[in-house]
């Protein structure tokens, strides 16, 4: 299984094509007059190693979109490709397997298992994906080190701060070396200092080539992405590339320049 994953990743890595590709995604809830369009005709291609932020006010459909992109919900219309597979062709069971090995999720309220230690939370996805307990544990230790929490491995989530819990959740999202990490308001429950920690962690992941899709209402979080997409009333209304452009002067922003 692991080998199959490596092979698949290999094909994705060598070809310069999107790892995640959505076309005409639409999600409607309710019937007839009460019908609500949560997501309207959204198309998106996420390239390998890219970080993409989708920003919008609450109720704009950005979380619904993330659930569609992550295969957690099925779209009413439209098509989605992940790791070369068309999600609409997959049964629930196969979709769940694809999700487990190709995606990592980070949620606003952490979604850690409260009865398990930090280390056990992080090794869980690898165990579920069929890794040996030894291998899962080694990987979990590695990841906790990477997020700077080696010294908290035996703590239960309740003994950790919000920022630490979210870093455990990020480590867990990385357990199966996902093609894409999908984050839904990852700093929504964090104070300013913890937000900075999590953003630094995302920057570090991005620097190692991890593909990231972050949904947020917080422009400060979105501004760290390569590409920022604005969503309004279920639609993409604007796209701004934030990196790779002409260097601008910060001094103008600080008011040091008249």
């Amino acid at each position, binding site marked *: 299984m692991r080998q199959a994953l490596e092979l698949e990743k290999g094909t994705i890595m060598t070809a310069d094509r999107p790892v995640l590709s959505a076309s005409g995604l639409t999600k409607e809830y309710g019937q007839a007059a009460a019908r609500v369009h949560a997501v309207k005709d959204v198309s998106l291609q996420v390239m390998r190693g890219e970080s993409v932020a989708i920003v919008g006010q609450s109720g704009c459909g950005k979380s619904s979109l993330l659930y569609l992109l992550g295969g957690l919900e099925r779209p009413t219309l439209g098509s989605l490709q992940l790791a070369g597979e068309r999600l609409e062709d997959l049964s629930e069971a196969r979709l769940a397997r694809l999700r487990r090995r190709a995606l990592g999720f980070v949620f606003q309220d952490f979604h850690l298992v409260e009865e398990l230690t930090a280390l056990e939370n992080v090794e869980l996805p690898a165990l579920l994906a069929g890794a040996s307990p030894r291998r899962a544990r080694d990987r979990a230790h590695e990841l906790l080190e990477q997020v700077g929490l080696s010294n908290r491995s035996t703590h239960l989530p309740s003994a950790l701060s919000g920022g630490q819990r979210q870093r455990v959740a990020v480590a867990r999202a990385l357990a199966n070396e996902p093609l894409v990490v999908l984050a839904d308001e990852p700093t929504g429950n964090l104070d300013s200092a913890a937000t900075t920690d999590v953003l630094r962690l995302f920057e570090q992941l991005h620097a190692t080539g991890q593909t990231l899709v972050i949904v947020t209402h917080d*422009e400060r979080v979105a501004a760290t992405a390569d590409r920022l997409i604005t969503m309004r009333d279920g639609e993409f209304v604007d796209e701004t590339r934030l990196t790779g452009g002409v260097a*601008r002067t910060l001094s*103008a922003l600080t008011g040091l320049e008249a």
Partner: protein
Amino acid sequence: MSSQRPTLAALPADSFTDYQLNVVQEVLLALLAKDPAHGYQVRAQLQLALGPLAEALNGGHVYVTLNRLEKAELVVSRRVGQGDRPDRKVYELTPAGRARVQAWLQDTSWPKPAPAEFHLKLVAAATTGMADPVGIVDAQRRSVLLGLGDAQRAALAEPDGSVAGLLLEGVVLRLQADLRWLEACARHWNSKRERS
């Protein structure tokens, strides 16, 4: 105006100094872009667009600025008789004045917090039809986002407790506030467009 509400005029006068000194030229030109007008009509339009903020507006400044604009050949004036009352001046944009308005509408530089100028720019764009207010908001938003990205990356690169980090945090928060307001502007002018 309700007496319960603290009036903006009660704020320190220099809160609006920048606005008076820097903004009025282009704003006044924009107010003349649709039709020639008397000085008092220009002033009434400004008061309408500024609402309670107009209390901080120095009325005489409008006339002084119009004279200055005339000397700069951005407007021309002619005298119009009014029967038994004294003649009034009607101001009209010159091609150079119109070009200045066009350039101002497209300009995204935002060196100081200037919500009043930007607000008036959107009002001018909608009134004159010379530009799409929503397009102006989007361009401004992109410009602010680029700045926010730079400031945020620089802030994250600062070690914890760095004093420069504090300044960057201030820049980031101000730009974020700007973005929130731009979002409100986008909604307002979008709904205006959809209704018309």
